[in-house]
């Protein structure tokens, strides 16, 4: 059920697809779709944007999430409530957070505009490519950093306390204990969080769809958004499937690299 559609999608991208009132027909093998897709500037931009966006947001989220988890671990009370609060953005419909941030960023009556203008002058958050990308990243980081923090915190709590205790008794300062002992022990937890996030980020769709509409221009158009537009707005299923397939290939590559790195790590570590 999951494998079949992917295979069919690949088949579709390799075919000339005719859309008519009575359905779709695959009109034989062709590489044209890929020639068109790989040759188009719009696809190249979407590819670069998606990869760069994924790398930047995921790195920020992983570091912030780990720091937050370390801070929360030292809380003496209220950790359960913090966990619950952190799970709220994760469980929120992305579309809702996108609408919310669109309102916050609004150039006329947005609350952020009101807060920032006295210090920086007028900032048109969603109006220029650079600020739109940054604004989208902030919305993304707000929604998904808590998810990383919760995973890492759960991992921290599960660490064997005696090892950390032993290091402390031996006179290691907290900093050394963290880098030398706890971080290596957390490796698997971090890897899981990283995998989740990278896979999600590559397929990012709903946030730009609502927040920026891929704009201004096509500056925040991700691969998934481009694929959707080509397929369901221009009704060019062959081309759209080719775009979608490039996304799949990207994710597969990511998975392979990840598994390789992970195996190597585990091989030498444990």
């Amino acid at each position, binding site marked *: 059920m999951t494998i079949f559609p992917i295979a069919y999608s690949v088949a579709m991208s390799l075919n000339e697809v005719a859309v008519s009132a009575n359905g779709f027909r695959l009109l034989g093998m062709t590489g044209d779709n890929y020639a068109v897709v790989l040759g188009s500037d719009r696809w190249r931009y979407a590819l670069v944007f998606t990869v760069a966006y994924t790398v930047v947001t995921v790195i920020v989220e992983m570091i912030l999430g780990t720091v937050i988890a370390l801070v929360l671990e030292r809380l003496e009370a209220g950790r359960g409530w913090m966990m619950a609060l952190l799970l709220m953005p994760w469980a929120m419909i992305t579309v809702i957070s996108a609408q919310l941030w669109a309102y*916050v960023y609004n150039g006329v009556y947005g609350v952020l505009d009101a807060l920032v203008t006295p210090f920086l002058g007028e900032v048109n958050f969603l109006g220029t490519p650079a600020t739109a990308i940054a604004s989208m990243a902030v919305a993304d980081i707000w929604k998904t950093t808590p998810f990383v923090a919760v995973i890492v915190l759960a991992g921290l709590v599960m660490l064997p306390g005696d090892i950390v205790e032993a290091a402390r008794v031996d006179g290691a300062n907290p900093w050394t204990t963290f880098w030398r002992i706890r971080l290596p022990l957390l490796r698997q937890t971090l890897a899981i969080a990283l995998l989740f996030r990278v896979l999600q980020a590559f397929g990012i769709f709903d946030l730009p769809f609502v927040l920026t509409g891929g704009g201004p221009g096509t500056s925040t158009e991700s691969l998934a958004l481009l694929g959707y537009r080509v397929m369901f707005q221009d009704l060019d299923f062959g081309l759209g499937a080719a775009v979608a397939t490039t996304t799949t290939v990207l994710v597969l590559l990511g998975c392979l690299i990840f598994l390789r790195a992970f195996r190597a790590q585990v091989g030498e570590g444990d």
Partner: protein
Amino acid sequence: MTESHAPARRRQHRPRLLTVSNLGALLVALFTAAPLYWLVVSSFRGPLEIGAAPTPLPRDPTTANYTDAFAEYEFGTYLANSAIVSVASTALVLCLGTLAAYALARLPLRGTTPVMTALLMISLFPTIALAAPLYLLMRDIGWLNSHQGLILAYTAFNLPFAVWILRNYFLSIPREMEEVAWMDGASPIRTVVSVILPQARPGLFTAGVFTFVACWTEFLLALTLNTSDQYRTIAVGIALFGSQYTVPYGTVFAAATAAMLPIALLVLVFRRAVVSGLTSGAVKG
């Protein structure tokens, strides 16, 4: 910086309020909660206030947005659609997932772990890779604009994760209990229902909450498969509300607040189940 302590140890002295970590936690809480606060508060602002300079609290609180969202617009229908699809998918995933996971945990099958891992990875794939073929499939069997089309897709996508979670639970249940049930002449299904399920309840909660949240928040498939108003889910309804030039934010936020309530309650109640699900990947299956 104070030294960190193993979480298992209880401190005896009175907790100090002003520590670096408490301040840090407060900041995190504020940053997380502020947008949520803004969403809920803004849902009580009238149309004039929504478009005026922002104030911390509504100057003139009104419930007009809620009446609009549910009387004037179709948000009630969208919520019902989301509820139907999410509940049905979750029930299906739990039933099928239990049987599949039990088989995987108990039958002497070789090489299940690589297969499971591959399935898990695929279920995390970007939905766009599946949107077009699923659209065609649903069109061919006449399930576009229906509940069952989304239910079928959601069940398929969420099954691998549920099977993964449940299998880990089943593996940790001692076989002796089942053997006793066998001796007493219970059928395999009976054994699962009366011996295994009570023990695997935390696993069922975890798989259930994850599936429900995934279905409730899914957007791309709901957008492409169900285009008619009658079958639209709440996520799509909220995304497509308004036009290019004006978005009636008050109404959107009222609907959004209503859509967040069930999920927020679910997460609060099953907090532990969610956390254990997030870390189960780190436990070798």
